[in-house]
């Protein structure tokens, strides 16, 4: 029996302008299908316990949720231990629909960036406006983090969740720790203003 581990063994770095930590194992299922199909909506809702989100948004429940990845792709979040069961249920519900559901939990690494200056840290790495009135909990964004793709949402007011490819986990962790080095604060009042 193999023991599942996260990409970096749960590393964290606290003595910085924002706390960086690798998130614990997270169940993730990629669902590709026509998202306007009512059978797909129903199956996704039953599996995740959340309605299918609209473009650029995420619907989070207690332990599971749905993220809008593209017009034909959802990312289903669920507890790691329940992935196999959830996937089976999803596939059974979609047996008559043109759809693809795959367990990608072990292909990804995820991180949290927490603190009042988390927005500054993220703003240094992504071409995204992270002002509080432009990016808030409930929104979901796939973008570029320095040189690699990443998916970002906020699980609380000062907490970012980042999902990247597992092979790039060390790179992303290094990026975050450098962007959050002590003394690298961007705004003296700690408030990230909107770009335009």
């Amino acid at each position: 029996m193999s023991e599942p581990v996260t990409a970096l063994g749960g590393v964290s770095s606290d003595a910085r302008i924002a706390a960086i930590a690798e998130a614990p194992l997270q169940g993730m299922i990629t669902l590709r299908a026509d998202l306007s199909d009512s059978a797909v909506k129903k199956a996704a809702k039953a599996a995740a316990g959340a309605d299918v989100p609209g473009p650029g948004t995420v619907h989070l429940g207690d332990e599971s949720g749905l993220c809008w990845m593209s017009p034909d792709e959802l990312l289903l979040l669920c507890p790691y231990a329940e992935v196999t069961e959830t996937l089976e249920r999803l596939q059974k519900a979609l047996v008559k629909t043109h759809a693809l559901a795959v367990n990608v939990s072990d292909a990804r690494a995820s991180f949290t960036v927490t603190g009042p200056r988390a927005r500054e840290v993220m703003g240094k790495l992504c071409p995204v406006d992270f002002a509080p009135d432009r990016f808030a909990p409930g929104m979901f964004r796939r973008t570029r983090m320095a040189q690699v793709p990443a998916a970002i949402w906020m699980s609380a007011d000062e907490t970012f969740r980042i999902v990247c490819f597992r092979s790039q986990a060390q790179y992303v962790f290094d990026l975050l720790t450098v962007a959050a080095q002590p003394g690298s604060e961007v705004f003296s009042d700690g408030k990230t203003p909107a770009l335009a």
Partner: protein
Amino acid sequence: MLILTCPVCGVTAEETEFHGGGEAHLTRHGPGSSDDEFQSYLFMRENPRGVHFERWRHVYGCGKWFHAARCTTTLEVFGTYPAQTTEPPKDLRKTISQKRPGWTWRDLT
């Protein structure tokens, strides 16, 4: 730097989140076409000073292709529109005419 809006996911971002896909609205000449047609499909491209139409892909985002109309001298983006079309939409051409009177691109004006 170009600021593009992906018409598929509605995200507005700068060009490093996208990837350029070359000239828009090419007609692919394949087997059965004349040598001239094939040669011009392969090698002949517009190189305008001013209004240009291009294909772009939202590579770090939703991953979808779309079209963009922009100015090659000022980098102004006139608009973006879906990939599933063979010519720029009329209202976009009207917008461009207001900003760049007398523009031409291939046989479009």
